[in-house]
C-alpha cells in the first residue's frame, strides 16, 4: 500500500478504534444524558472513519471497500495510536482518553485543512466541526472531574498517570508522517504537539490536575505494533465477517 493511503489509515483507525471503545461504554454511563453524549461522539468518529476508509479503498483500486478495510485487516495492519485502544476502566479513564484524543484531533484536523491533498483537506474541514464540540465537552468534564470532589480528582489523577505514557504517540513522527509532511499532504506534528501541550496545561491548570513527572512515552501503534488490547477489540469487532466470510450484512 502506498504511503499516502497508510497515512489515511492512521487517521481513520484512531477514529474507528476509539469509536468502538465508546460503543462498548453504551449503557455504562454515569447518567442517561452522558450515556447519550458518549454514543454521539462514537457516531461522529465512526462517520469520520468510514469516509476515510471508503476513500482509501477507492484510491487503492484493488476492489476493497471501507468495510473490508475495517473488518478484514489483522492487528499489524491497524495503524491507530495505542491510546485509543486502552480500555474503559472507569469514567475518568474514558474521559481522560477522550480529552487527550479530542485535543489532538482538534489541532490535527485544523492543520490538515491546509493539506494539498483535496480529500484530506476536506476531511479536516468536515471533522473540525465535530471535534470542536468533542473538545469542548471533554475539556469541561476535565474541569468538573479535577476541580470537583477529592474522590474525582484522585480517580482522574490515576487515569492521567496511567494514560500519559500513551499520550505523545500522536506526535512521534514515523517514516510515513515525515514523507507526507515533506510532500505537503500531511501535517507538521510539532505544531500540533505545541498547541496540544498548551491546551493540556491550560485545562489542567483550571482543573487542579498535574502533568505526570514520568514522561516516558510508548509508541508502536502507527507502525502496527499494538498493546494486547487491540487483538481483543478486533476479535469482537471482526467476529461475524471472519466467521461468515461470504455473507453480506
Amino acid at each position, binding site marked *: 500500500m502506498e504511503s499516502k493511503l497508510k497515512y489515511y489509515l492512521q487517521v481513520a483507525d484512531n477514529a474507528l478504534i476509539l469509536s468502538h471503545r465508546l460503543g462498548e461504554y453504551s449503557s*455504562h454511563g454515569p*447518567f442517561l444524558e452522558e450515556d447519550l453524549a458518549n454514543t454521539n461522539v462514537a457516531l461522529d468518529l465512526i462517520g469520520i472513519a468510514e469516509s476515510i476508509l471508503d476513500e482509501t479503498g477507492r484510491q487503492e483500486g484493488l476492489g476493497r471497500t471501507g468495510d473490508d478495510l475495517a*473488518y478484514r485487516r489483522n492487528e499489524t495492519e491497524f495503524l491507530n495510536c495505542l491510546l485509543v485502544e486502552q480500555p474503559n476502566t472507569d469514567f475518568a479513564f474514558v474521559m481522560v482518553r477522550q480529552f487527550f484524543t479530542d485535543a489532538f484531533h482538534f489541532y490535527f484536523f485544523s492543520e490538515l485543512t491546509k493539506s494539498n491533498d483535496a480529500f484530506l483537506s476536506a476531511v479536516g474541514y468536515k471533522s473540525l466541526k465535530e471535534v470542536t464540540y468533542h473538545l469542548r465537552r471533554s475539556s469541561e468534564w476535565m474541569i468538573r472531574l479535577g476541580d470537583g470532589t477529592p474522590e474525582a480528582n484522585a*480517580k482522574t489523577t490515576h487515569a492521567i498517570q496511567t494514560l500519559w505514557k500513551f499520550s505523545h504517540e500522536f506526535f512521534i513522527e514515523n517514516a510515513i508522517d515525515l514523507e507526507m509532511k515533506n510532500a505537503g499532504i500531511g501535517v507538521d506534528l510539532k505544531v500540533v504537539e505545541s498547541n496540544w501541550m498548551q491546551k493540556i496545561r491550560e485545562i489542567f491548570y483550571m482543573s487542579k490536575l498535574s502533568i505526570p513527572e514520568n514522561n516516558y512515552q510508548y509508541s508502536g501503534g502507527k507502525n502496527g505494533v499494538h498493546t494486547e488490547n487491540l487483538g481483543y477489540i478486533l476479535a469482537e469487532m471482526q467476529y461475524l465477517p471472519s466467521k461468515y466470510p461470504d455473507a453480506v450484512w
Partner: protein
Amino acid sequence: MNTIAPAMEELLAAFEEKINAEVKIEPKDWMPEEYRQHLIRQISQHAHSEVIGMQPEGNWISRAPSLRSKKILLAKIQDEGGHGLYLYSAAETLGVSREQFIAWLHEGKAKYSSVFNYPTLNWADVGAIGWLVDGAAITNQVSLQRTSYGPYARAMVRICKEESFHQRQGYEIMWRMMEGTKAQQQMAQDALNRWWWPALMMFGPHDSDSPHSSLAMKWKIKRESNDYLRDKFINKTIPQAELIGLKVPDPNLQLISEGIYKHGDINWDEFWEVVKGNGPCNQQRLEHHIKAHKEGAWVRATALASKSNN
C-alpha cells in the same frame, strides 16, 4: 365531610367532562389520585423500558458486522435513551423525581417491559427487536398519541416518529439476512422463533384478565384494548414475514379471512414467570443498571460540586 365531598364530586365531574371532550389534562390541572398514580406507574415503566432496552441491543454494538450497521445500531440505541429522557420528563410533571423513579426500579417496585428480559443471541436478534419489538411498541404507541395526559401524548408523538424508523431498520436487517447465505437465513428464522411470542406478550394479558384496563380506558389513558392492538400487530406482521420467506412459529395460526389471522395459545405461564423476575435476563438487566448507576455516583457528585457548573 359534607363540605369536601361535593367539591370533590364537582372536580371529578369537570375532569371527566374534559376527558370526554378530548381536552388534554395538563400537569397543573386537578386530577383524581388514581389517575395520577396510574400515569406515574405507566409512564415510568415506559421510560424504564426504553432505558433497559438499550442493553439487549447494546450487546451487539461491538460485533455489528459492517460500518453502516454499527452506525445505525448506535443511533438507534441513542434514540431509545432519548425516549427514556422524554418519558422521565413527562413522568416528573406528576410530582416524582427521576432519582425516585430509578430508586423504585432498583428496589423492584417499578417494572419495565418484560420483553427486554430475553437475550440477544445472534445478529438477527437486533433485526428482530427492531421489526417485532419496536413494531409491537409502535402499534401501542400510535394509540397513545391520543392519550388524555398532555405531556405523555406529546412525548408519544416524537417517539412514534423515531420508532417507525426503527421498525423499518429492523425489518431491513431481516430482509438482508434472508437474501443472504443459508447460515444468515437460519439466524433470521431462529431470531423470529425466539422473539415472536415475547413480542405478542408485550400487549399484555387478554382483555378479560387485564387488571388495570377498565379505569384506564374510561379516563382515556389507554385508548385501545390489549387484544385489539395485538391482533392489529399480527395482521400487519405476518405478511411481512411471508414476503421475505420467514415462518411465524405458531402451528395453530389460522387465516380467518383475507388479512385477518387468529393466533394460537400464548404461554401466559411463561409471561407471568418473566414478570415475576424469572425470565432469562431479569437479574442481569437490573444488576447492570444498578452497577452502572452506583459506579456513576462519584461522577454525579463531582458534576454537582464543580465550579464549572456555576
